[in-house]
């Protein structure tokens, strides 16, 4: 039996595909999710309506979406930046933790400084920790050609262990000495608390503004600069890059460091804007790093779109937390996110290839 469906490589990729296909994959994910709901005896329309109401509709819901979107925008950018060069950085999760460690160190130490300066220094702290952590993966890849998917994933576990050590298993600088029975992070001083603006009643965290800035900066970097050109050539053909005198090893390390810096910035925003302390359990539960991969995939690695998609996934996640209960299984949102990743990756194939229904098999047109 031979499949009647075949894939032909598109000679040209029409521009409209770039937004129609992701939207279509989203719809497909919702339909697949509806089937799952229907099988488990729920009314899909009812469930989706409640998700929409609690996730997006109204000022309160949208504030929640933006809150959740802030860390996701950064981890999404982290994944997108690496994907652009063909590097699969699964390590956004660990780099995010490290960023939180770095930023909370700064936030605790600089209790007395003005808020503006503290925010900037916390951002720097988060970026330095995140980028150094990711650069290790980059160096291993560039120098020894180790698979970055595996090393970055392994380093997530290392980062988690390190985080637990700081808060639960040691008397570290980050641990609150006044709460020996219930181990928790030291609370940052009030001045290290990041601003949240209220616009028409919607809470806009400063971290989200920084994410928009970061997304724009990445867009400019990749679209307009010499460095972006070099990354593009390296992604297209490593041999051509070598031929043109582009420094392969350093470019890989820099891209990984940049990717990690963005995740680290997310960790800083999470500590400064929302948690106010190094919440070892909380950020591990959230799993922003992994969800960021879904965000980047759905945004097709476009840094600006990544920020927008983060709002969508953020609202979805927030609604999932809010609605959890007997009528709304806690795994549902995770299932939906998985389906979205699945259909987004499938959609990626549809952008590069087209499906032809024929009774016969034939090879790709050269």
């Amino acid at each position, binding site marked *: 039996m031979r499949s009647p469906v075949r894939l032909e490589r598109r000679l*040209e990729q029409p521009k409209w595909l770039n937004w129609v296909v992701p939207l279509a994959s989203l719809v497909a994910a919702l339909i697949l999710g509806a089937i799952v709901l229907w099988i488990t005896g729920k009314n899909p329309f009812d469930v989706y309506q409640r998700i929409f109401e609690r996730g997006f509709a109204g000022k309160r819901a949208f504030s929640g979406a933006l809150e959740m979107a802030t860390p996701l925008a950064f981890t999404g950018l982290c994944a997108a930046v690496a994907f652009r060069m063909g590097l699969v950085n699964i390590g956004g999760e660990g780099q995010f933790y490290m960023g939180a460690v770095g930023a909370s160190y700064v936030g605790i130490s600089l209790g007395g400084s003005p808020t503006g300066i503290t925010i900037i220094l916390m951002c720097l702290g988060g970026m330095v920790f995140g980028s150094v952590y990711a650069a290790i993966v980059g160096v291993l890849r560039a120098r020894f050609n180790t698979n970055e998917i595996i090393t970055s994933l392994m380093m997530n576990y290392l980062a988690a262990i390190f985080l637990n050590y700081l808060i639960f298993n040691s008397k570290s600088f980050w641990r609150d000495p006044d709460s020996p029975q219930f181990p928790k992070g030291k609370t940052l001083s009030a001045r290290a608390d990041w601003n949240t603006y209220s616009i028409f009643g919607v809470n806009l965290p400063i971290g989200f503004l920084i994410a928009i800035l970061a997304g724009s900066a990445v867009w400019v970097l990749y679209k307009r600069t*010499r460095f972006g050109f070099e990354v*593009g050539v390296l992604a297209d053909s490593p041999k*051509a890059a070598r031929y043109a*005198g582009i420094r392969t090893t350093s470019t890989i390390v820099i891209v990984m460091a940049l990717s990690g810096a963005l995740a680290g910035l997310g960790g800083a925003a999470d500590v400064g804007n929302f948690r106010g302390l190094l919440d070892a359990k909380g950020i591990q539960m959230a799993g922003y790093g992994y969800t960021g991969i879904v965000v980047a995939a759905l945004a097709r690695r476009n840094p600006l779109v990544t920020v927008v998609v983060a709002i969508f996934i953020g609202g979805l996640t927030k609604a999932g937390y809010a609605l959890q209960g007997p009528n709304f299984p806690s795994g549902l949102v995770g299932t939906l996110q998985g389906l979205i990743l699945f259909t987004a990756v499938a959609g990626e194939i549809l952008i590069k290839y087209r499906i032809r229904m024929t009774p016969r098999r034939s090879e790709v047109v050269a």
Partner: protein
Amino acid sequence: MTSEIAVKMTGIVKKFPGVVANDHVNLEIMAGEVHALLGENGAGKSTLSNILTGLYRQDAGRVEISGKKVEFNSPRDALNAGIGMVHQHFRLVSTFTVAENVVLGEPDSSLFMDQKAVAARVQELSDRYGLAVDPSARIWQLSVGEQQRVEILKVLYRGARILILDEPTAVLTPIETTELFKTLRVMVSEGRVVIFISHKLDEVMAVSDRVTVLRGGRTVGTVNTHETSTTDLASLMVGRSVEFNRAVRQVPADRERIVLDVRDLCAHDDRGRVALESVSLSVSPGEIVGIAGVAGNGQRELAEVISGMRPITSGSITVDGESVQSGRARSAIAKGIAHVPEDRLHTGLAAGHSVEDNFALKNYRSMSRFRILQRQKIRDQSTHLIERYDIKTPGSETPVRLLSGGNVQKVLLAREFSASPKVLIAASPTRGLDVGAIETVRERLVQAADSGVGVLLISEDLDEILSLADRILVMYEGRIVAEVEAAQADRARIGLTMGGITT
């Protein structure tokens, strides 16, 4: 030669978006003959053979094998019918060994492969047909010429009765070509059929029994080889008469001066073995120095080393007395070394990038301010080069992978020449191009030399070297084993030295 018809294709039509690749093509091949399929690039030879091997399915027309109508739904069907193809662009898994590649896709292959038995069988075949290659070597370690031998072995291993060879001699030296032709004659004497796709007239005359000429997707005619001539075939093929002449030089080389000086160069190949052993050579301004040799004797490494893509272990490279840093392509570019590599689409160019980005591939640094690219400058450069080098492209933003082979090479040459280099390294610059494009490329090389560029022409096509070079060096096993002035060159002698026979 028996009169039994082995392959009969009638009224074959195959359309691709925007092109009719085959327009009612007819082809009739007798058992026990070498049948040449002659035509320029884009004449429809590859499409026709892809239909015969089950890769494509025709839109209309009929295929018969030994008098029976066949329908191929996949290459495996064609394989089962005894048809095997040696592709021009190799279909090998580069991280697998030769033996693994040979059995890959074998219908009878079991879960576990008997490495030793396969290797022994491959060795036996390679000995029998003179296709020297180490069964345990990995594909990425092999030269282009060696990789082709693997492709041929793959088909032989499966016992194909009808062998299609697409431009098989493009990577071979005269001696290897002669050996291949002997192999082909042995095959047809066993009753097999060889379909020989080429646009090299001499070879078609030398090896085939009959020739079918295609032009613009149509059959022009089938002739008996002994009743025709190269001139006749050429005019059938291009629809006009073409003459091949030795290049006429307007400005002679300045032999008093030296622009490229290479001293005692040693370097390793990808496997870490010695690839270049104490190579010394010099090129004068305006001189074309040809490097002849069988593929895999260090030519590729030589080109890579001079252009800074591969580090040297000892020795020196200087351009106008200034030394080039080892393994630094940027240093080589800055010193004025232009490089037209063998692998145009993936080394010389970034295939997925636009024409304009590829023009900027080496000078994008100067097309920027404060590290921001000046897109308008890049666009202007592209518009200028497209016009000046007569490149056929839908636009500046078209990815180069969509251009035809000739235009791909023109993009590469345009970029390299426009950088006003002092030295040009050209590796197999006309390989795989059609007659018209070959002429253009050769003219450009001669023009470059006339304008004072020192050209190092590395080619496995001895005719090309004889018609272009002022001086010829022969490489064998990583050394330069002979040097002759082109005017005094003796084709047969060079052929012998290429095969390692020094007189």
